[in-house]
């Protein structure tokens, strides 16, 4: 590696300058206010966790973890998501009597990037986890809250795609007979390779009816009418239950008044093994990547020796801001430029203005090199110079 420039940062790490900081703060506040209004309580967890515990329980692939060693030789990870640390915390401390627990976070997470080195390797996520509630209303609440929080930021056009991994698994298992074969097919969906999926299905020694059932899965996208077609494809209890859960979810989302924002998508496979039931992704116009995702992960807490159902969502703040586009965070900062003789007067004036809620810079004239350039940054500017009264 060539010698580093002194201003360089590790790949994928970024500074946040004042303008972006203000935008982030406004968007974060809009979301966290809404989340708090739904009774979710914010928590913080450490940036570093053990690789063996949180690192391996996380949904993020191993090669994307930042790993390091502590002084005792334990492998540590920079937290790649917040769900696993919250599961750890809930399992060990907060989740006690089996009643639902509603937690929320906004925190930076870390994911090493393989390709196009400049992509953010550290970014902020805002999200919630609803732990201990296995009902469909919990799934619906999490989706509704995500939509509400996004609306609060001013986001205009966005869509939530909802699927059910239990349905995909049940259909595959029913037709293919074993996990191994189901896994091959599931991977095609996960990799979004529909051509490969179709070719693989056609190559399987199945009846043409069964092949058609598997191919039909790819068309199961749209409004709730999809659910009746989905129901026709499955005969096992697991498959039927999954469709019924989605019907109940749709009903709940209608009661919440957000069914228009949601589309059913039975092909959605966001992860090979992490999710256990209803899962979703959210997309907005103008950004090529999902803003966030979520779903039910009923097996995660078990890894921390505590069996409990759970569901949640997380939104990537950087992508959300990209989707928002409008950036009117212009806020006025006033300035008082004073000379030594009128220091006391300047302090008093600044105090008054700050009490009124204004942002005020107090600047000694002797500290300024280029008064023209400096005075352009602030509005209005009050000059308290010389010994005679006020001058403008």
């Amino acid at each position, binding site marked *: 590696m060539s010698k580093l420039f002194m201003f360089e940062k590790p790949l994928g790490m970024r500074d946040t300058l004042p303008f972006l900081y203000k935008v982030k703060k406004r968007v974060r506040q809009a979301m966290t206010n809404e989340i708090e209004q739904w009774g979710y309580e914010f928590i913080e967890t450490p940036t570093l966790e053990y690789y063996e515990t949180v690192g391996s329980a996380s949904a993020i692939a191993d090669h994307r973890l930042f790993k390091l060693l502590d002084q005792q030789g334990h492998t540590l990870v920079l937290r790649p998501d917040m769900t696993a640390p919250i599961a750890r915390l809930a399992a060990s401390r907060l989740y006690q009597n089996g009643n639902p627990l509603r937690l929320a976070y906004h925190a930076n997470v870390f994911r090493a990037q393989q390709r196009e080195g400049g992509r953010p390797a550290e970014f902020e996520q805002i999200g919630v986890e609803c732990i201990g509630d296995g009902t469909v209303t919990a799934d619906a609440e999490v989706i509704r809250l995500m939509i509400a929080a996004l609306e609060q930021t001013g986001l205009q056009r966005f*869509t939530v795609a909802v699927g059910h991994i239990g349905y995909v698994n049940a259909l595959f298992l029913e037709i293919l007979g074993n996990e191994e074969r189901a896994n091959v097919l599931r991977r095609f969906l996960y990799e*979004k390779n*529909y*051509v490969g999926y179709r070719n693989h299905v056609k190559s399987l020694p199945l009846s043409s009816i069964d092949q058609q059932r598997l191919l039909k899965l790819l068309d199961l996208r749209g409004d709730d009418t999809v659910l009746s077609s989905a129901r026709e494809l499955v005969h096992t209890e697991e498959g039927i239950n999954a469709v019924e859960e989605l019907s109940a979810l749709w009903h709940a989302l209608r009661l919440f008044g957000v069914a228009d924002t949601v589309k059913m998508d039975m092909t959605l496979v966001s992860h090979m093994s992490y999710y256990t039931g209803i899962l979703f992704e959210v997309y*907005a116009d103008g*950004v*090529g*990547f*999902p803003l966030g995702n979520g779903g039910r992960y009923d097996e995660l807490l078990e890894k921390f020796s505590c069996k409990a159902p759970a569901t949640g969502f997380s939104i990537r703040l950087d992508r959300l801001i990209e989707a928002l586009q409008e950036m009117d965070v212009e806020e006025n900062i006033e300035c008082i430029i004073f000379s030594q003789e009128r220091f006391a007067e300047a302090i008093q004036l600044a105090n008054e203005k700050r009490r009124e809620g204004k942002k005020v810079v107090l600047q000694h004239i002797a500290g300024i090199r280029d008064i023209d350039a400096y005075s352009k940054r602030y509005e209005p500017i009050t000059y308290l110079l010389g010994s005679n009264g006020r001058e403008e």
Partner: protein
Amino acid sequence: MLTIAMPKGRIFEEALELLRKAGYALPPEFAESRKLMIDVPEEGMRFILAKPMDVVTYVEHGVADLGIAGKDVLLEEERDVYELLDLHISKCHLAVAGLPNSRLNDIAPRVATKYPNIASSYFREQGEQVEIIPLNGSIELAPLIGLADRIVDIVSTGRTLKENGLVEFEKISDVTSRLIVNPVSYRMKDDKIDEMVERLSAVITNEEDES
């Protein structure tokens, strides 16, 4: 509006023909233009012309909703896009080739290719440890001049190999052009995209039946 990234060159012509057969009214002088961005307002479409390897990048970033890309590029780049449809055009295959009766050098086994990812995972799966030498074109030169014992490249008619005195040893995978879609566009513009997929697959099934 749908933005479609198209690879320049041979695939572009074939893809245009396919779209016309699917009933999209595209202007006849289309292919001769040197513009990189062509709007067809009557169909609510915009075409952007890119290097074949770059089509997947435009689509992954969502600046193009759809794209037409060879399976070779998809295998090499492994981008997060939906591979919706096999268009059955620009058929060829990826293969390992070299000089006749030659073998991989035991001491310094080298493979030259435009597809370093495909080549390295192919040889890794074979249990062979090789050095991959990335080249940007005229791959056939590598064995002739002694840069590498093997090349990994796409072969359509096999003429280029033959004229340079090379033979094909193993086939890695079949290649055709695919319709790819950005995951967000797939959800936000699903009506239009589903319609295009339907119209295109009707044409493709027809042609497959005839051939």
